């Protein structure tokens, strides 16, 4: 990337955030944006704790070779995972790991943390992501392997029971209990208890984060603390789901990192701007924030990129579809379960055009499809009737209103064996289920949102065992990728004639 492109991009972010600040009413959001602006300023003056990480982020140099060192691995890993770990643990300031769906990103991150801890029991690692759920997944996985690692999870808003014990509140409460039993000086107990009683005190959170081997928090939370000197730097910062994070979110952890490892998949969903944000972007001259993603560029240009090439989530049939459509056939199947009839297109003739045309409507149309809602309900009932064990099912749709309509319907249903979760595709990124039912929703109009290649990748790659695509084929075949999916369903199910299931309205 040329200096100008980077400077312009950073400048667009600065202008965008400044404009957003004027439009926001919510105090919490204002504080978040103000902090992001501060990070942008710091980065633009290279006022970060280790400029090497930033320089490598802006101008990737030739990659360093992976460490020749052979590691004694804690976990079962394939060759591509081992290679990613070697590059990440090498002497480069910044490395990237591309992890397609189900390829064991979390496993790789856990192994990196365990290796770093074994090498240095005082190591300081910051694991972060743009969502609380992703951070909790990481913390929960890492904590399974070694209970001597000091872990702290800062400001968990998900109330995830598996990581609750790592909250400052729990840590301090256990510590005070210990003090009361083991400390003979009541004065000291009183002083310490009183000083550490405010669990949301930022200086307490910061001190605990810097005292831990692994601190977990969201990227935005980092901006709440002042890390003043290199003695307050993290040895390694790992950002998960990096392609889903915005540039200011990525930059926050980089400002306090001795070394950074970015993990994500540029072929899955990027950050999404809400309509108010899009209006602000459009009001800024030559602003490219909607079209240009710096992190995608970095994955292309950096020499320190490793790719995880084997997926363990999906049956071979689903895995091959994902590999062929989105990864040039380079994605291997590691689960080795063929999964007959595991990808099925459910075709139907729509009773009317969806979204409905409403002549007097001023706002954007609400996109939902009652035909597909009915079909999905009947598929779920059939699945429930035939299920013998508890099965997780995700019903996902590209559009918020369709997801909400389906959610409303599911509340009225009672399933014996199915645990049904309804969400948008964007909301379901990073999660997986035994069975996924993907509602295309539209039967007319633009493919711009529904047909986005990254959104389709996420939609199709969540299912472990079975994937249903519910859509009006006469509409879908007009889109290149959707047509390929339909063709694939016919091909793999030709023996059983299950390529298309037709549902009559």
């Amino acid at each position: 990337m040329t200096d100008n492109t980077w400077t312009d991009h950073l400048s667009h972010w600065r202008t965008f955030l400044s404009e957003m600040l004027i439009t926001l009413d919510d105090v919490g959001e204002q504080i978040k944006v103000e902090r992001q602006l501060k990070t942008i300023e710091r980065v633009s003056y290279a006022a970060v704790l280790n400029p090497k990480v930033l320089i490598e982020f802006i101008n990737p140099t030739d990659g360093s070779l992976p460490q020749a060192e052979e590691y004694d691995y804690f976990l079962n890993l394939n060759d591509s995972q081992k290679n990613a770990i070697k590059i990440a643990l090498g002497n480069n300031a910044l490395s990237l790991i591309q992890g397609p769906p189900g390829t064991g990103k979390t496993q790789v991150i856990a192994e990196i943390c365990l290796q770093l801890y074994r090498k240095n029991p005082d190591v300081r690692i910051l694991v972060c992501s743009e969502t609380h759920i992703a951070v909790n997944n990481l913390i929960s996985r890492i904590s399974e392997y070694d209970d001597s690692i000091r872990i702290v999870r800062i400001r968990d808003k998900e109330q995830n029971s598996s990581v609750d014990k790592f909250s400052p509140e729990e840590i301090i409460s256990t510590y005070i209990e210990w003090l009361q039993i083991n400390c003979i000086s009541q004065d000291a107990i009183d002083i310490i208890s009183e000083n550490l009683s405010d669990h949301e005190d930022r200086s307490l959170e910061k001190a605990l984060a810097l005292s831990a081997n692994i601190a977990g928090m969201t990227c935005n939370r980092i901006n709440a603390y002042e890390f003043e000197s290199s003695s307050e730097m993290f040895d390694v910062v790992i950002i998960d789901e990096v392609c889903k994070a915005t540039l200011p979110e990525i930059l926050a952890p980089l400002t306090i990192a001795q070394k950074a490892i970015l993990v994500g998949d540029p072929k899955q969903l990027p950050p999404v701007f809400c309509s108010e944000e899009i209006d602000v972007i459009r009001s800024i001259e030559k602003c490219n924030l909607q079209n240009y993603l710096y992190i995608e560029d970095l994955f292309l240009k950096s020499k320190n990129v490793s790719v995880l090439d084997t997926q363990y989530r999906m049956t071979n049939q689903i895995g091959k579809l994902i590999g062929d459509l989105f990864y040039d056939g380079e994605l291997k199947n590691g689960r080795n379960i063929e999964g007959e009839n595991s990808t099925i297109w459910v075709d139907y003739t729509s009773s009317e055009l969806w979204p409905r045309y409403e002549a007097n409507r001023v706002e954007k149309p609400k996109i939902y499809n009652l035909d597909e809602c009915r079909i999905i309900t009947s598929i779920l009932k059939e699945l429930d009737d035939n299920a013998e064990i508890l099965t997780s099912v995700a019903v996902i749709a590209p559009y918020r209103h369709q997801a909400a309509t389906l959610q409303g319907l599911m509340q009225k249903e009672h399933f014996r064996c199915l645990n049904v979760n309804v969400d948008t595709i964007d909301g379901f990124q990073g999660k997986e289920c035994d069975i996924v039912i993907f509602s295309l929703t539209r039967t007319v109009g633009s493919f711009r949102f529904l047909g986005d290649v990254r959104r389709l990748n996420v939609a199709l790659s969540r299912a472990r065992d079975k994937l249903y695509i519910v859509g009006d084929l006469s509409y879908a075949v007009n889109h290149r990728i959707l047509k390929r999916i339909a063709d694939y369903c016919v091909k793999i199910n030709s023996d059983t004639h299950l390529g298309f299931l037709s549902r009559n309205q």
Partner: protein
Amino acid sequence: MKVKIDFSLCRRFGVVEQTIFRLILNGLTNPQQIGAFLWVFSDEVIANSLRKLVNQQIIRVDIESRKLSLSDAVVALIEICMHSSFEIDIPNEILLVTDNSDYSIEKTAIEARTAILVKLLPNVKRSFLIGLAKCFDFRICKGGEIYD
């Protein structure tokens, strides 16, 4: 009006510095013991906090005996705050605002805090007191009933 002055470590010091300061104030002088009590924080975090307090001349380290103690300036400040009271004119406007309770001098101009320190420690160099003023918040307490 007769007042007494009290002080505390200002809020730019985090909980670890505040705790260590209070432990030393309470007579705990062995850094290893302090570290052992505060094991919930890493050695590096505790060392950084000690460094910050030493650099700001709030505490000092006796290398030979490996003991921590309050700096001379802080000891002098405690002495004067404990044993002296001062006659000052507090404008009615301030008295009304403070509702007859203590008047806190936090986040105020460094000049105000330096002026208090100059009054409390008249024999100490002003340049030194400016540095110290950045470390403390003050409370003016009416008549002395609060601190007694």
